[in-house]
């Protein structure tokens, strides 16, 4: 079960905060991707994913995070072939990006989720914040 709510906050730029509640796994990671696509289509360019109420992220859930990050970089995932080619190029960029250049960031993962992010290397690639205001202000 995954609930999603949205707040738009003003930092240096408008930041969409997507708050998740529940477990992010194989049964619902595609919902997260669709929501990220819809938000991007509506004009959102900076996404902060609030994980405070997420109790569990499975490996499929990581695909959800990864795809959402790509979407916020302007990549279209509709065509798997093209999506993957773009994804490779983007994932190299992601490594080089400085935190303030990232368009997709994570907020307050619980220790159990933080462990999954650390084990999978995601916490090296995606900026993680513990304080919401600091996170919102970090988008430029």
């Amino acid at each position: 079960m995954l609930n999603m709510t949205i707040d738009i906050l003003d930092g240096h730029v408008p930041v969409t905060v997507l708050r998740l509640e529940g477990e992010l796994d194989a049964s619902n990671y595609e919902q997260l991707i669709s929501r990220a696509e819809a938000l991007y289509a509506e004009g959102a360019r900076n996404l902060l994913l609030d994980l405070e109420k997420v109790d569990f992220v499975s490996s499929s859930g990581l695909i959800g995070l990864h795809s959402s990050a790509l979407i916020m970089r302007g990549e279209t995932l509709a065509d798997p072939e093209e999506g993957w080619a773009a994804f490779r190029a983007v994932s190299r960029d992601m490594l080089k990006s400085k935190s303030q250049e990232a368009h997709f960031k994570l907020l307050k993962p619980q220790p159990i989720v933080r462990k999954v992010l650390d084990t999978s290397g995601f916490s090296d690639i995606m900026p993680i914040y513990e304080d919401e205001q600091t996170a919102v202000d970090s988008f430029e």
Partner: protein
Amino acid sequence: MKKISLHGFGLFSDVEGRQEVAAGEVIFKPGDYADKMYLIIEGELRLTRGENEIDVMEAGELVGEMGMVENRPRNGTLTAVTDSVLLPIDRLQFAALVRQHPGFATRVMAIISARLSRRTESEVMRQSFQRELSIGRKMQRSLLPQKMPQIPGWDFAAYYDTAWQVGGDFYDFIPLDEEDSGPSQIWMVIADVTGKGVPAALYMAVARTLIRAETGKGKSPGQVLHRVNELILSDNRSPLFLSVLLAMLDVQTGAITYASAGHNPPLCYRRSTGEVEELPVHGYLLGAFAGVFFSEEHAFLEPGDTLILYTDGVSEARDEQGSFFGIERLKSAVAAAGECPVEQMVQALVTAVSEFTGAIPQADDMTIVAVQRAQAWTNLGDNAY
């Protein structure tokens, strides 16, 4: 296959009592008394048995006639897919229609016959799919080690089970032989492709081959993972991730060098203290990020120690309340079976998981691989004097 319809037959002007049903409404369920059949005037209905769909029927078709004619309770569930209009026809009305319109009986028989052959065809397809899948399962199993490595001083054990017919987990042992004197190193691989079923199984076969091809003398686990990651990213067509734990064991010294690509931390049972260590891991899921490097860690197995590798199907198995088996329960199970020979230890872990999950069906592939350093060598040394 063409469906035969009673539409335009013009027989039903004298049958009263059209019944409107809303989408989602259940018209009958197993055990209900079958006192009538239905002609579908408008809409679409679905007949299911358990979780299997038997048929979807639309306007002009009859449904429920078998139970009525054979005078037995319903054995399926009939649900309206769309808002529908039905005309119920009971036994007496049916008998009257057959008497008054000789062509009616023949048309009903044609409908039943067409439906039977349609259902038989889908059953044949289902069986053929099952056969293919079962061949796939055998082929996949043949990619796993057929027997445990035989190396003096070391005992190996493994458990592998898929949630579906085929799965995305795999494990492997790759011994590197010296020219004359048996293996000096053995590489242990455990991996988990994200997702389940056929796509994961196909990807598993590719990943296994890549890892085998890249492993060799003079390479280290971190180098192999880096190279495999680059190969996957250069040739991948679909967004699948793969977690791998790659451990290189020096069978002369007991030294282990390992690297993790987003995989669960291995556990190490220490015979001398009875404690279970969670070995540190840090590394990227394969297929996710290009250009990344994998750090290596080192551990050492003393005589009597056991190293346990596992996939998240073990730690993330759930009980009826939805709680995870978790790493702490796994560590306790390892500690409880720590003194057992390695094969029994692996079996004890599997039993602990299945006692925890109870009646909940296995949701993910589950793999455990363990290696135990024999104790006999030091005992022999002590007794030598």
